[in-house]
């Protein structure tokens, strides 16, 4: 691998109603093998992906939320949540499974602007 690029994954969908969140997570885990500079962003309903206490037994699907806790072991430590998205949903950092950096919309836009590659889910 020649030079390190800045990769950003933008997650905007709630976790279980569609396949986007799981697909994004899988791509992120694969990308981790390429030693790039990876950032994960959670915007809009995407913040629901990180909600604590998900129990999918009743809908008979895989509960993939514990995998967000494994990201640290994959050296993916840059997780950002947009403050406005969190507030609109009545959520605070204590409701989330993992440690995140909370950014306001303008800071989020600035961070997005600094990326080489942005993948949206």
């Amino acid at each position, binding site marked *: 691998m020649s030079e390190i690029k800045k990769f950003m994954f933008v997650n*905007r*969908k*709630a976790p279980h*109603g569609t396949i986007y969140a799981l697909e994004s997570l899988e791509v992120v885990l694969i990308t981790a093998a390429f030693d790039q500079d990876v950032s994960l962003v959670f915007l809009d*309903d995407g913040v*629901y992906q990180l*909600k604590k*206490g998900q129990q999918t037994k009743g809908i008979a699907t895989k509960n993939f939320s514990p995998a967000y806790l494994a990201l640290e072991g994959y050296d993916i430590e840059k997780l950002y949540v947009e403050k406005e998205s969190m507030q609109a949903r*009545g959520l605070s950092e204590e409701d989330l499974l993992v440690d995140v950096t909370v950014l306001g919309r303008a800071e989020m836009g600035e961070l997005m602007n600094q990326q080489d590659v942005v993948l949206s889910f």
Partner: protein
Amino acid sequence: MLHIINKSPLTNCALDSCLRVVQSGDILLIEDAVYAATSGNVFEDKIHEAMGRCKVYVLQPDLDARGFSDRIIDGVSPVDYGGFVDLTTTNKNCQSWL
């Protein structure tokens, strides 16, 4: 009539449209629409308003899957799959707002 919604109120206007039009009957929130039944969501006021003219239900297993079992808005009634079936039979007809 039973109205079934399955989209999050903050990314899709299905629930908004439903509430704009519907004057009475039962509303059942399933899949990503269960977020509408959680307290603290900006949509909460519209649910309170809707409960003045409709009965609002939420599918419990979908709420559990999303980690919101303990955040149901007061007055919204949780139902299991059996309750879902009951709602479809006690109502004359039903509409899924896709």
